[in-house]
């Protein structure tokens, strides 16, 4: 782990690495979102009413499910490829399968959230 960065932060964020890089960045955003969710969960357990209200808020639920589910599904792909290196040559196909699974699962989850929030 180096202590010096060879490129600027903006150049790093602007790196065009295709779908693999997109999943890498979204995985990090999802992990950070889940860490925030964990904090809200702990504060809810402690009885903070504002945090309990936040957990019931549909916008919070939407953000949590959008990024959290991506983190879980992408993590499953990473784990499978990591533990079975022979499958690594199919990583693009794995990413495509992952997107399909994510759209189905997240779509259903968000449908439930929106139906509860807006009725119908």
């Amino acid at each position, binding site marked *: *782990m180096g202590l010096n960065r060879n490129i600027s932060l903006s150049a790093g964020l602007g790196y065009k690495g295709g779908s693999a890089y997109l999943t890498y960045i979204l995985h990090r955003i999802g992990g950070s979102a889940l860490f925030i969710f964990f904090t809200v969960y*702990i504060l*809810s*357990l402690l009885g903070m009413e504002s945090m*309990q209200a936040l957990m019931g808020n549909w916008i919070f639920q939407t953000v949590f499910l959008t990024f959290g589910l991506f983190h879980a599904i992408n993590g499953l792909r990473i784990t499978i490829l990591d*533990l079975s290196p022979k499958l*690594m040559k199919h990583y693009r196909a794995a990413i495509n399968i992952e997107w399909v699974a994510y759209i189905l699962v997240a779509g259903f989850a968000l449908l439930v959230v929106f139906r509860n929030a807006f009725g119908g």
Partner: protein
Amino acid sequence: MAARTLSLKKRGFTFEVFMWAFTRFTVIAMYGLIIAGILGALSLSQQTGMNVGDILYWAFFPNLAENPLGQVWMTILAKLMVIAFVLVACGHGVHGVLEIWDDYVTSESARRWARNIVITYAVVASIVAMYVILSA
């Protein structure tokens, strides 16, 4: 993309290898606990006639919801599973947050401070969660 050419045995048991294994196995444990939790909740729902959502909500927020489970052993098992999930998720999350932090922050002292703060936070949060879940 080339496959891994160095076996785990040849890599040696360094800190990086340990953390790689820790992250992978905690995530596998989480998937296992999620599947076991959903199957357990479905099974309890069938036995008790309670809503699956109510069982899961009580499991994660035992201080906010009424215990829907009649038998004591079910309550203990559900609480132990939720505690295991929270601890595993916390351990996995700490490593992930520190990895992200280390990638974007190059100052050695900032890295050291972040490490101390995040690990302390994780330990305190885990203890709080265990206490609330067990005592509710």
